[in-house]
């Protein structure tokens, strides 16, 4: 039983990075596919479309920071449930936000390709999605700081 608890604790420590990275991969892939499609259609402004595809990578960075914050606690039977709960839920939150951001960016790329003047405004939905990832990130750090052990 102790081993299972420790396993969960370690899973919690690594989840923010692992799940955040999975989300970033999918999000960047979705935005990247849309950017590549747009490149076939537009004559200029390639750089800005490709630049947008990198936005969902921030969730991986948040995951790294949260992972280091959780690593400051020793994984024991007492700390494992807290580490697992904070880490896994943070990871899921970051993963979902990265995937959603990728979809929002695909729409943004598609819209600004048709109407270049809305480029800045069309990124707003993706920025709002990023805001929720920041909430998860900040409060994961707060909770990690209050974790006993």
């Amino acid at each position: 039983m102790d081993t299972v608890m420790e396993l969960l604790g370690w899973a919690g420590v690594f989840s923010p990075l692992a799940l955040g990275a999975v989300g970033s991969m999918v999000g960047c892939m979705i935005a990247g596919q849309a950017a590549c499609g747009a490149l076939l259609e537009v004559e200029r402004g390639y750089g800005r479309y490709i630049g947008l595809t990198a936005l969902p990578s921030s969730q991986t960075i948040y995951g790294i920071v949260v992972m280091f914050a959780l690593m400051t606690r020793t994984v024991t039977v007492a700390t494992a449930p807290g580490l697992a709960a904070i880490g896994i839920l943070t990871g899921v939150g970051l993963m979902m936000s990265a995937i959603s951001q990728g979809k929002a960016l695909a729409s943004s790329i598609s819209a600004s390709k048709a109407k270049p003047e809305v480029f800045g405004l069309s990124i707003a939905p993706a920025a709002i999605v990023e805001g929720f990832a920041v909430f998860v990130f900040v409060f994961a750090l707060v909770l990690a700081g209050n974790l006993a052990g």
Partner: protein
Amino acid sequence: MARSPRYYMLMASLPPLPPVFTSDQTPISRLRLERRLALLEPDDRAELAAIEDLMRWDRLPLDITDQEILERAHSFIPQIRSATLREVATWRLEVRTVVAGLRRRALGRPPPSPREPWGYGRWVRYITHNWAATDFGLGGALPWVAEFSRLINQNDTLGFERELLGITWQYMSRAADRHFFTFEAVALYVLRWDIISRWTAYNGRLAQERFDRLVNAGLGEYAELFDTSSATR
């Protein structure tokens, strides 16, 4: 229903469709469109081709009978995997049924007998039962039937075609609003592209102007040699 990540690329690579009747040419040529459609999963590509075959008259063999068209529709439409595309295909054939009824009545022919294979969908019996009513009694569900009837009776072919394509465009656009980077979105794009293509093909004057432009573009610097106005000077 395939939901391939490649459809993000495919949809983003397609130029936006202009509102119908506002353009004198399609936003992308059929050749380029076909190249982009190569990104479709094989099953989806086959299904899209079959839907287009069913919905476009020009793809039907000249000697096909109403019975054969109906058999095709009855066997193919239930097999369409997407509920949205099933609805669209059904709706399109139902509209065609209403139009067939209106044309038949305008020719002074009696309503089809119950055993005659002539229409598809839920309105077939309703139409034959309300043959004398201007809108076949369908005005509540299909408010455009009375206008269709008026245009057909006045033999206003162009006006009727415009109305028909406009109604079809609106229906497909509403369906497309629910889909973005999926097979349904691609299919509805192609079906609406077909509408623009069909309308622009009808416009003789614009077609001639476009043909002249293309010829001049192709001739390039040699265009002057074929310019009749300069030759007479």
